[in-house]
């Protein structure tokens, strides 16, 4: 019956970003799959904490029962979250954490993201060589966390040298140009760690007619395709998972809490490293790769045990 169905609000402050769109799709898909959500109200625009506070307040006003928020800051939203909680609204922060005790937090561990990828790279280089760190946007929390993880990993490998550290701004062309410039500058490069701008970096080696070096990227469909298809050309690399379906998972948690099921307030999703070095791993990659999908679609499309939707549901990207 419609009476015991819930209205869910979503707040996101980065639009036109494939990962975030997929996150929203996963929320809609999970709402559909759960059968107990009557409506998903999305507040989606570009902005910072100030804009997000306004959106959250509007969602509260709109009478939602739960809010899934991808927070633009750890501290800034706390007062609104508290206000929501006093009105009985369940708030789940996904992807990035908030420090408000009222909120449930379900995040990808970004420090670990940086650390496991970097560790794979340094191991693969046998603890010695020149690497390039291609970061995201300076001043963004996720970038800072990943850098922290990268740096922690680096401490264990004294013979690894970071010869260049750039900010790609998570923009394809910027990353591509930077890699090409670095290659042209004659710097000795033995490996590259990227914060998600991965496939264009691999392409840069091809265009520059240099032989491939190991590259760490994200679980983007296109990059995984490269891991599979360029293996024969001597390309090795690893994709670190960072599932956008934390959105759907967050919704599942929120619905559970609304139905008085217990959940811990902090759930961390540990990233996995998928490399193409062994045949077994390559087989796994082939299983998740889908040539039909958008190259920037993250192919780690579920977070077990939370999400229950099917692939067609998330691809449809339609809420109730």
């Amino acid at each position, binding site marked *: 019956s419609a009476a015991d169905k819930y209205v869910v609000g979503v707040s996101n402050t980065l639009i036109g970003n494939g990962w975030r769109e997929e996150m929203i799709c996963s929320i809609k898909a999970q709402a559909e799959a759960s059968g107990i959500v009557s409506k998903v109200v999305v507040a989606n625009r570009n902005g910072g*904490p*100030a804009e997000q506070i306004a959106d959250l307040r509007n969602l509260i006003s709109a009478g939602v029962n739960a809010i899934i928020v991808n927070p633009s800051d750890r501290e800034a939203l706390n007062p609104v979250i508290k206000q929501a909680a006093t009105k009985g609204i369940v708030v789940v922060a996904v992807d990035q954490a908030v420090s408000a005790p009222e909120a449930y937090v379900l995040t990808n561990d970004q420090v670990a993201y940086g650390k496991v990828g970097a560790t794979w790279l340094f191991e693969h280089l046998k603890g010695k060589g020149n690497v390039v760190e291609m970061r995201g946007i300076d001043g963004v929390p996720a970038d800072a966390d990943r850098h922290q993880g990268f740096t922690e990993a680096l401490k264990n490998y004294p013979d690894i040298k970071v010869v260049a550290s750039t900010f790609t701004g998570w923009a394809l062309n910027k990353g591509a140009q930077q890699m090409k410039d670095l290659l042209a500058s004659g710097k000795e490069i033995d490996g590259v760690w990227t914060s998600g701008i991965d496939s264009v970096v691999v392409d840069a080696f091809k265009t520059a007619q240099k032989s491939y070096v190991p590259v760490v990227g994200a679980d983007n469909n296109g990059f995984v395709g490269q891991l599979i298809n360029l293996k024969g050309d001597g390309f090795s690399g690893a994709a670190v998972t960072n599932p956008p379906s934390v959105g759907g998972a967050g919704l599942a948690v929120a619905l559970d809490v609304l139905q008085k099921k217990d959940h811990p307030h902090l759930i961390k999703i540990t990233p996995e490293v998928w490399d193409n070095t062994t045949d077994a791993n390559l087989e796994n990659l082939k299983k998740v790769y889908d040539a039909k999908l958008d190259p920037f679609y993250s192919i780690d499309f579920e977070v077990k045990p939370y999400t229950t939707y099917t692939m067609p549901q998330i691809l449809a990207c339609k809420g109730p």
Partner: protein
Amino acid sequence: MTAAPGKSRASERNGGASDASAPPEADQRPSIAARLHRFMRRNPALVGMPALLVLVLAVTILVHPEFGAFDLQSLALGALPLAMAAAAQTVVVLSGGIDLSIGSLMAVSNVLAASTMQHASYQEALLLAVLILIAGAVQGALNGLIVVLSRIPDVVVTLTTGFIWGGVALLILEKPGGGAPEGFLNLATGTLCTDWLCSAWVPNALILLVTSVLLVWLPVRRTRIGLLIYAIGSDRIAAFRSGVNVELTRILAYVFGGLFSAIGGLALTMTTGIGAPLAGTYYTLSGLAAIVIGGVSLTGGRGGMLGPVIAALLLTLIPTDLIYLDIDPNYGQVIQGTLIVLVVMIGGFAAFLQSRK
């Protein structure tokens, strides 16, 4: 014909004062209706914008009958930084310039405040706020100085100083953080509460918005400075030949731009409680949209402060309505873009019809 013709007539007219700043309407008193008509014709934004605001508010209440004190506060909080960005841009544009570094200036004040106020007391925070306002004015002055001394078009100068101030913000605070004392935040996030009156219906953010615009702008508008700013915005050569120190006035406009940006940056600190080095980026362009919707001519010299401020409220209210109406937010962006275009198109069309008459 006498040497100093008609001095006495002049004295009669103006009560003996030959004060150059006497109100222009002092002697000829057309009927109230005629003056009102003329005022409306001359300041279409002054009449149209409040009407539009009332209309949109009415629509909001229609689609969301529960609209209450909480929502009014949401509106004020959301509009405050944008309104300050618009105010900053207004002063500069009225003087015939443009400032594309406003977002970065706001970011600098925002991180300055958050990084210095973190462990400060309320009183210290207020003192720091004053210092940050001064710093904002100085940054504005630097923008203005470069514009005047380099003789590069202002768009270019402020586009590039925008990069520079953005870098400075990052230098001050590498990633979001910092803080400010509760009392200071309350200046924007609280609601009016004095010894004799406590009303949840009057958000502090709204008071802050109105007073900062009034306190800074009215003295400017009512004195010679305002006159100079409008004059150089309207025709720089004519103003120069009328004896205006054009270069100083241009710098002054940027100083006020910097001051309003700093208020905007402080507003960001108050509403979010933190500093974020990228916080201001959205405000450069949306501030520009607000001033154009608010009837300020981008060629300078025409417009006022009321229009842009109301436009900032409108631009804040529209996404809210989209949420109330439960419109797919992606269509929401289409709608917002369309609305901006429509508002100015209708304005353009009205002007077109007017010119036909």
